[in-house]
């Protein structure tokens, strides 16, 4: 579970383009707080879709599953829920 959380946070961090490491990425931060626009959200959805598919067949994340209003914790919970 901790590994999945760290992997998701790392993907969010990479797409945001921000410096720092996942230790400084607060669970309460929204994707909007991290500079995400709608296109970046779809890029994140695509990366997470590839991630969940690599972990468990039959899972997927759609383009509208990730929005700028979501927090880091909610994105992590979404992925963990699919892989549970």
């Amino acid at each position, binding site marked *: 579970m901790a590994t999945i959380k760290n992997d998701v946070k790392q993907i969010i961090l990479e797409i945001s383009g921000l*410096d720092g490491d996942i230790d400084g990425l607060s669970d309460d931060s929204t994707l909007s707080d991290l500079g995400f626009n709608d296109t970046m959200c*779809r890029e994140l959805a695509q990366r997470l879709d590839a991630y969940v598919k690599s972990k468990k067949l039959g899972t997927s994340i759609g383009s509208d599953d990730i929005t700028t209003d979501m927090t880091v914790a909610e994105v992590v919970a979404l992925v963990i829920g699919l892989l549970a």
Partner: protein
Amino acid sequence: MLNFFTMKNMVIMTMLLFSTLAGYSMQRDSIKKDSTSKSSAHPFFRNWSVKQTFQTPDGQQSPATFALSIPASGKNNWLVDGGISVSLGKLDNAIWTSKLIGEIHRNTLIDSAQYNYQLGYSIEKFKDKGEGNYSVIWIGNIKYVRDVIDTGNSIVTTLNFSFYREKRHGFNLGRPGYLHDQVYTYQLNPSVEAQYQQYFGGDKHKGAIVRPVFNLSAAIAVNKKREYVEKTDTVNGVRVKRLVRKVIAPTKAWELAMSYVNRYAVLDNTGDKEGYTKLLRAGVNYYFVNTNKSTVSLGGNYNIGSDPINGLKEQHYWQFALQVQF
């Protein structure tokens, strides 16, 4: 009635307008902290947006501008350059999104006055799955345009292709990029567009125009200081505190911004001989509110050129005004 519009009252009204817009912007970004609720502002705020034009992607900085002066005698002066949209939701697994749009462009502070309003529909296609590092965002608009100055009515359709490049390192397009340890934020937004404008019969203008358009906007901002958070680790049974940089999008303080649009009327049977037109805008912004969803800034910029669809005639001028985008 005229006695109400004293200098003191105009200052108060300007402050109220500024506070209202700033408050709206901040409310739009507010989050609920309790674990049982979604971290989103009220749904009412999420579906509306304000910016200068809806022909370019939402991620591009394009703030609307407002200013109004009502002298005790003489004509009122207007500067309203912006529009409002309401989202109609997402289609086809969120690949497409559509919205109703309305724009007004009125400026009586310049040599050749501008007064133009538009109502229409906009549709935007987001990044498809399976594409490479470069993506193209499509935006199509169809709208009714009324030019009050020239007494012209027309239907305009535009199709804009904006470029998006996804890379943590290297040059980004269509999204913010950061330099020198996030001391600076930059954004480059190149796009190409095709415009078709059909005038109604019986007006000053008749016929139709087709214009290919090249658009480049660029900005670089100096950011406010970075934030740090304190983390506590346990090392060999001893609690050790350390400062960790908070991962958050930097907040802009000052920004240099420019945009350049070049058009050519390749097909023109209006008889106006429009030919090449351009619009260059360059200036400085100071941000009071700056998040990814909302900006409130004071801007000073130099403008030279024209914008036929928005009713701006060829001229050059300086402009200092309140700018809002959310």
